[in-house]
């Protein structure tokens, strides 16, 4: 019954003994890990790459361009074209494309000899199927709305496709960029992650939800076979745990690491930090709620916010850019002169508020309940209080926030987060909740519609002017305005080479290798 002191002592010693034996006798797990980080001597080909990401994979939503799939989707699945650094589409699965003069018909020529991971050759039927998947709302493709304007897709031959547009579609390459080509017979297997078949340099082996996934090299790849043997992806939700994983060598590449942790590794020369895609932190208001029905009030708050402090304290100067625009600088026709339309000017803000008769107004700021967003919201609240408003915060848990954003009901003032996804402004206009029809600002004037249409129908020469006009209008009306853009940063150990990223920030591991 009650253990005698002797028995207890004995069992403690026994336990210690087991522990010591395990630690010394058999292998030390720590030594194994250390060996992993002191990588194999000068091997360029072969080896396993270990990735860590903060959120679980989402293979059931490959069409939705979720950040969660950034670690693997572009290495396993491929698209028709891919943007280069200048946002010019480069051929991948499509080798040639011709647009008719009226801009309503496109002829696509597909690459030959491309094999899916299940052995079958890719044909134009697969491309048609994939585009139709994108158009189906149930697949939540963010660029699907582009495909829905197609009047027809005709398969002319196994390598030729003709698409008829309902109207000129300058952003068709955004669709091509983000629509993976998948085989019809395997689509069911995507839903539970049991068979994810693509054409990429890596095949998807397995996925343990919430835990890990495994990819291995596909030797029948149409291009240069990958250098790595396989890729292991671990899901690590806790930020400190992810940092530990990188530090201890358990992970070679870390995605979605917290900015503060990236900063702490940046100084260390055994790690590399790579900037990938951008996200925007806009500040929006509902033009139907006082005092924001007055333009002066809307502009006032844009002047009131200290964007520099947000960039510095919340995101880190290296991982952010202070800009009022929703567009990234790489976008063709980027209106650079409008970048800092609103400077930090509390005095001007106070004046404008007085003009609008909004001094002392009570404002509820709704924000997404993620750490960075909450910090941004606290700074904004502080700034607005300083210029004479009475702001309070309403931090919403992500699901609640998403549900409200989908409905377009975020209250008087709100601070969302939008991934910019490496697509054209024309696409962003319809894709970003803050800008599209039914936006939470309830802003949809005739002039706005007109300027949007001008941009969509603009020819190459007119494009920059049209973008400038639209941008200036949005800034002036101030129903929404970006506070800062954050730049996603990926951390790798110094011995990882050849990793690149799509404009969306997805990992391309085809040329990756681990070296001495």
């Amino acid at each position, binding site marked *: 019954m009650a253990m005698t002191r002797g028995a207890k002592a004995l069992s403690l010693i026994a336990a210690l003994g087991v*522990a010591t034996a395990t630690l010394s006798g058999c*292998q030390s797990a*720590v030594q194994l890990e*250390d060996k992993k980080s002191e990588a194999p001597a000068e091997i360029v080909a072969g080896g396993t790459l270990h990735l860590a990401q903060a959120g679980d994979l989402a293979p059931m939503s490959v069409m939705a361009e979720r950040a969660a799939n950034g670690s693997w989707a572009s290495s396993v699945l491929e698209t028709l074209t891919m943007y280069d650094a200048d946002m010019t589409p480069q051929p991948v699965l499509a080798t040639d494309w011709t647009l008719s003069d009226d801009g309503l018909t496109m002829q696509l020529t597909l690459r030959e000899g491309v094999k899916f991971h299940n052995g079958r050759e890719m044909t134009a039927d697969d491309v048609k199927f994939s585009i139709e998947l994108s158009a189906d709302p149930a697949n*939540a493709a963010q660029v699907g709305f582009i495909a829905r304007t197609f009047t027809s897709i005709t398969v002319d031959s196994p390598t030729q496709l003709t698409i008829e547009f309902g109207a000129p579609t300058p952003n068709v390459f955004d669709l091509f960029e983000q629509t993976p080509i998948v085989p019809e017979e395997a689509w069911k297997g995507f839903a539970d992650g049991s068979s994810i078949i693509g054409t990429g340099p890596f095949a998807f082996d397995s996925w343990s*939800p919430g*835990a890990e996934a495994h990819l291995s090299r596909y030797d029948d790849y149409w291009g240069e076979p990958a250098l790595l043997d396989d890729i292991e992806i671990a899901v690590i939700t806790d930020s400190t*745990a992810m940092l530990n*994983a990188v530090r201890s060598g358990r992970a070679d590449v870390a995605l979605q690491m917290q900015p503060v942790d990236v900063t702490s590794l940046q100084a260390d020369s055994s790690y590399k930090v790579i900037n990938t895609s951008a996200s925007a932190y806009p500040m929006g208001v509902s033009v139907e709620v006082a005092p924001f029905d007055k333009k002066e009030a809307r502009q006032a708050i844009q002047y009131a916010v200290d964007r520099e402090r947000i960039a510095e304290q919340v995101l880190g100067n290296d991982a952010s850019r202070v800009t009022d625009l929703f567009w990234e600088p790489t976008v063709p026709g980027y209106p650079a002169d409008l970048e800092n339309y609103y400077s930090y000017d509390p005095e001007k803000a106070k004046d404008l508020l007085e003009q609008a008769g909004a001094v002392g107004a009570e404002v509820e700021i709704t924000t997404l309940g993620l750490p960075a967003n909450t910090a941004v919201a606290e700074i904004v609240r502080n700034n607005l209080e300083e210029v004479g408003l009475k702001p309070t915060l309403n931090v919403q848990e992500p699901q609640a926030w998403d549900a409200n954003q*989908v409905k377009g009901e975020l209250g008087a003032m709100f601070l969302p987060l939008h991934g910019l996804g490496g697509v054209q402004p024309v696409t962003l206009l319809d894709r970003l909740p803050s800008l599209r029809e039914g936006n939470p600002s309830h802003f949809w004037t005739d002039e706005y519609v007109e300027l949007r249409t001008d941009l969509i129908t603009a020819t190459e020469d007119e494009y920059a002017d049209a973008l400038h006009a639209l941008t200036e209008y949005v800034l002036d009306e101030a129903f929404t305005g970006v506070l800062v853009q954050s730049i996603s940063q990926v951390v790798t150990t110094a011995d990882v080479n050849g990793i690149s990223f799509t404009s969306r920030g997805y990992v391309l591991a085809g040329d990756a290798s681990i070296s001495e």
Partner: protein
Amino acid sequence: MLKFLAKKIPSILLVLFATSIIAFLLPRMAPGDPAQAVAGSDATEEQVAAIRAAMGLDKSLFVQYLDWLGGFVRGDLGMSFVYNRPVSELILDRAESTIELALLASVFMIVLGIGLGVMGGAARSKTARVVADSVNTLLIAVPAFVVGLLLIILFGVVWRLLPVSGEVSLSEDFGIGFQYLLLPALALGLALAPGIARLLQTTMLATQGEDFVDLARAKGASPRRLTYRHVLRTSLGASIVAIGMRFGELFGGAIIIEAIFARNGLGQLIVQAVNSRDYLLVQVLIMAAVLIAVISQLLTEVVLAAMDPRIRLED
């Protein structure tokens, strides 16, 4: 004893049934749903609605519950809305990790809890009692994640003795797996032990004033015999109750520990399930947790009865 256990089965089933209803309704009262989670934050209403219909979430709640119940009695725990896999498969995948953690953590919890409690309640040297008591007082106040963090710093950073991130299952490789398991289990055990220790210490100190102890002392029993044979034995009862109750807390504590040690167990699974409103997965996990709590309480009563002949297992 078997009769006792058999009589308990109806009430256990009742508890499970009640839990299933609560666990079914409660998450659905929260904003958002799995369709929203799958669609993503930038989706349109149309997209979310389409996904919702595909998931069958537009049927009435009553119908959905009955569908699930029907499958349940046939042994089918339901399908995850988000992962499109059977709930049972998802749980079994991760169960081993948490079971390992819980078992070793319980061992630590019991050993440390009782050890510290005895030291504080009956050690002969006053210093030992004071030390035990202070350690206990301190441990009670320190949060589990701070304990875990300290262990990580001490044994993973300052002295690189043990791995602090990730896991290897014991069935895969016992030696390596155990090293990965040690710190997390210790952290969890340390977090739960002080409550038990404190209770044991208190009851032991109180028992020392009891009549029967005086009697034993008068009869000439040695201090050690007094402590162990008489005081401790009678004091353990309260601690057994406390230990039994803490089995339920193991699951809750596992959530934090699994996060900071990057282990992929059921604790992480339920957090992810709640975050993505994966209703059926949440429901089944809740039922499992409650079942474990109920069973551990039963076992507590059984152990108590075994220890003390004055107690009879009666309903």
